[in-house]
């Protein structure tokens, strides 16, 4: 049965335990960084950072400053546009048991820009050493061994929950009702389409540009499909044929 992660950002204190836990478990190398006047560090997701706690400050109309935290990573879309956009068989696969979208070593031969631009959440990154396209894999090795994904395990605030999708949807609905009592604008981000569901207390745009799917180029007459997704789907067979000809 498909799995899901619920991330309740109202409980997140931005301790970055998930970010560090992910990096430790994946044994990813350190990256050079510098102070940019924010705790968000490194500045963005990268080939060696599959999880990043984003910090977003903004001022309310009454002059109070709000600080929102958003532990960003792959959403493991139910119908993943990146998978539809892949031109090589087996480069991007979806694990049937969990629903995890997994990038294999074959992604080294994929066109990075196509895969990146097909993602409505701006997740894929390219490893300059291996040329592979990389991202969170829902800790598929751990989940298959009946262990929690590392980010969920390391969350000290109980902001992250992992389990059967049906159970997580139920939990999400319960939490939403509770949170809306204090934050009427609270909502669940794209819960119908993704396996990593975020509960935010305010307008998602106040957390991260890509907190919800980027639908700025949504196709008229094709509800639910963005131009990126449409193009990825249309050109996938062509790219596949080209790759085959190139060997």
């Amino acid at each position: 049965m498909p799995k899901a992660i619920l991330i309740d950002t109202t409980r997140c204190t931005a301790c970055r335990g998930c970010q560090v836990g992910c990096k430790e478990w994946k044994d990813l190398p350190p990256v050079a960084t510098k102070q940019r006047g924010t705790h968000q560090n490194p500045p963005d997701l990268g080939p060696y950072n599959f999880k990043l706690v984003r910090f977003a400050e903004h001022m309310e109309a009454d002059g109070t400053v709000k600080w929102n935290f958003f532990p960003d990573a792959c959403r493991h879309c139910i119908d993943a546009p990146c998978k539809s956009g892949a031109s090589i068989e087996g480069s991007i696969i979806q694990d049937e048991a969990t629903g995890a979208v997994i990038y294999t070593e074959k992604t080294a031969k994929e066109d990075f820009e196509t895969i990146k631009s097909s993602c409505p959440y701006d997740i894929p990154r390219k490893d300059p050493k291996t040329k592979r396209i990389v991202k969170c894999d829902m800790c598929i090795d751990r989940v298959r061994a009946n262990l929690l994904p590392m980010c969920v395990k390391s969350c000290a605030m109980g902001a992250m929950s992992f389990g059967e999708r049906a159970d997580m949807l139920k939990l999400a609905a319960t939490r939403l009702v509770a949170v809306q009592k204090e934050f009427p604008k609270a909502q669940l981000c794209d819960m119908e389409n993704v396996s990593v569901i975020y509960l935010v207390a305010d307008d998602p745009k106040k957390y991260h540009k890509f907190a919800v799917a980027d639908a700025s180029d949504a196709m008229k007459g094709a509800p639910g499909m963005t131009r990126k997704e449409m193009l990825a789907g249309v050109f996938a067979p062509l790219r596949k044929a080209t790759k085959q000809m190139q060997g």
Partner: protein
Amino acid sequence: MQTATPEATSALRGIETALARALTELPALSPLLEAFGPLLAEQARLRQAAPGWTGPAITVDPDRFTQGAFVLAHTQVGGGFEDMSAQLPAAARTLLPVMAKSFPALAKEFSALGKAIKSGALSPQDLAATGFGERQPEVPGVSSETLAFAAAELVRPFVERQAQDLLALVRELPWRQTCCPVCGGAPNMSALRRVNEDDAFIQAHGGRRFLRCACCATEWTHKRVSCPGCGCEEPDELVVLRDPARQHERADACKRCKSFLLCLDTGELADTPDPDIAALTMLPLAIQAKEQGFKPLAEHPWSNL
């Protein structure tokens, strides 16, 4: 007191899921799992359909309870679980064939027992009393050990279902004893579970410790670093036995009173296995503990295999 009572349907699903996983992970234990797995699943079905506590309402005195008087101690002298003998013949019709299939060497004895129950040679009342170890009637073609085992397993689903109702009476009351808050039984299993508290504080990764009653499967919280056998809290006296390949399974042993209790550490597990199936998979650990001179606080049906 924090308690854990799984929903009936999820309990059955949990048994089936945990059994399938255990068979894949531990093929060496497949004879054991294939014998007791179907029995546990059938008992879960019986528990689901069992009537629960239908006896007179029990008034629990919070002060007495807090001082250690478990729920059944609040009934009249000699009181215990409600008589379930009326349900036992029907339960025997479904459970004994499963047991015969699970334990082929005892199939003839289970068949003889089934006939004795059907003919009335063994009354339901005698069967229930045998299940609680109060009587030892003679049944032709059935050894006393087989009769005791079958009767105990027939009674178990009804006891567990009644305990669920009785636990509801004391769920909000504190309980610091190492015996069961419902029936006073000793624990034969424990688990460390992360409990998602609805507050804004840092949550312990290790989780709280729940003890599980060997008699009625009630679970209740108890302090983590303490021997449930003698209360010893000396770190040098408390030993944790583990198989390095299965870190989530452990036997918490005490050098002072020489007892041990199996423990499932669920803190890192994505899917928490059913406690009975988990205890089955921990049989090698229990054997290891016994070889080192420790004794279980209470046994499982398979403990002496």
